[in-house]
C-alpha cells in the first residue's frame, strides 16, 4: 500500500550522501532535501494563487456590474504594448527554464548567461510597464491620485463604434483602473522582487554556487518566475483583450 511508503531512507542516506556539503543536517539525503524544498516552494505559490485570487474575484464581480466602463477602460490600454510585454515575459520564462536546464547540466557560464537574459527581459517588461503607467498618469487615469473620467464621456476617435459613456458609468472607469493598478501593480511588485533575487542568483552563480550538484535554489526561483509569468498570462487577456468588442 502506498501509505506504507516512508519519507526517509536512512540506509540509503548513509551509503550515498553522507558527505555532501549541501545536505542540511535534518534531512536524510539530498533527494529528500530537494523534494522538500520544491514542495515548500509549491506551497508558497499556492498562497500566491490565493493572493491574486482575491483580486481576480473583485475583477470578476465589477466587470459584471460595470461592463461598459470596463470596456471603455480597457480601450485605453495599448494592446501592442500588452502583447509585447506578454511576449517578453514568455521569453523570460523560456530563458529561465533554460537557466534551470544549464544548472541541471552544471554549465556555469550558460547558467549566468541565461540568468542575465532573464534579468534583462524582466527589466524590459518593467520598463514597458513604466511607460504604460506614465501614459495613464498623463491621461488622468490614476484612481485617487490623478483621475478624471471626463475623457470617457466623449467620443473616442480610435473606437468609432464605441458610444461615449454616460457620466455615471464614466465614473465607474475608476473602479476599472483601481483594479488595473492593483493587479498589474502587485504583479510588477512580484517582478521587482524576482529581478532583485535574480541579481543575487547571478552573483552566486558567478561564484559557482549552483553548478556543483546543488541547484534547488535556481529551480525554485524558476518556479516563482514562471508563476509570475502565469499571472500575467491571465492579466493580459482580462485587462487588455476580452473587452475589445462590446
Amino acid at each position, binding site marked *: 500500500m*502506498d*501509505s506504507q*511508503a*516512508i*519519507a526517509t531512507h536512512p540506509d540509503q542516506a548513509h551509503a550515498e550522501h553522507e558527505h555532501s556539503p549541501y545536505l542540511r543536517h535534518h534531512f536524510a539525503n539530498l*533527494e*529528500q532535501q*530537494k*523534494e522538500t524544498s*520544491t*514542495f515548500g516552494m*509549491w*506551497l508558497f*505559490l*499556492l498562497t500566491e*494563487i*490565493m493572493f491574486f*485570487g*482575491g483580486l*481576480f*474575484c473583485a475583477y*470578476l*464581480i465589477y466587470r*459584471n456590474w460595470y461592463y461598459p466602463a470596463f470596456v471603455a477602460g480597457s480601450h485605453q490600454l495599448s*494592446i501592442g504594448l500588452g*502583447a509585447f510585454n*506578454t*511576449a517578453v515575459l*514568455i*521569453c523570460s*520564462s*523560456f530563458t*529561465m*527554464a*533554460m537557466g534551470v*536546464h544549464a544548472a*541541471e*547540466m552544471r554549465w556555469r557560464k550558460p547558467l549566468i548567461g541565461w540568468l542575465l537574459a532573464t534579468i534583462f527581459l524582466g527589466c524590459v517588461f518593467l520598463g514597458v510597464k513604466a511607460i504604460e503607467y506614465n501614459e495613464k498618469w498623463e491621461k488622468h487615469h490614476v484612481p485617487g491620485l490623478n483621475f478624471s473620467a471626463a475623457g470617457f464621456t466623449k467620443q473616442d476617435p480610435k473606437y468609432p463604434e464605441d458610444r461615449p459613456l454616460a457620466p455615471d458609468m464614466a465614473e465607474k472607469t475608476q473602479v476599472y483602473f483601481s483594479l488595473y493598478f492593483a493587479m498589474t501593480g502587485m504583479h510588477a511588485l512580484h517582478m521587482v522582487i524576482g529581478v532583485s533575487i535574480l541579481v543575487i542568483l547571478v552573483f552566486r552563480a558567478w561564484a559557482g554556487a549552483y553548478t556543483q550538484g546543488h541547484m534547488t535554489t535556481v529551480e525554485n526561483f*524558476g*518556479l516563482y518566475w*514562471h*508563476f509570475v*509569468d*502565469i499571472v500575467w*498570462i*491571465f492579466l*493580459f*487577456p*482580462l485587462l*487588455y*483583450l*476580452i473587452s*475589445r*468588442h462590446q
Partner: protein
Amino acid sequence: MSQLTEKEILDTEPTHHSEHIVSPKVYGLIFASLLCLTALTVAASYVDLYAFNVIVALAIACLKAVLVILFFMHVKYSSRLTKLTVAAGFFTFFVLITMAMTDYISRAWGMW
C-alpha cells in the same frame, strides 16, 4: 472534496523520479507554441466573436498556463503531491469565486 482529501492522504508520498531533465528541445517547442498562442489570442481579440471573445481569450490563457505549469515548471514530471498542491490552489480559488458569486448573482433575484 472528500475524495480530494482521501487522495491527498493516500497518494502523496514522494516518488523518486524527480531527477528528470527536460531537454532544451522541449523548452524550445513550448516557447514557440506560447508565442504562437499569444499571437493567436491577440488576433482573435480583433475578430468580433460576441460572447466567445471572452471564452476564446480565457481558453487560450488557460492553455498557456497549463503549458507553462506542465513543462516549464516540470509538473508533468513531478510527484502526485505537487500535482495535488496545484489542484488544491485552483480549487480554493474556485471556491472563493463561486461562493462569492452566489451572493452577487442572486442579489438581483428579489427585492431583498
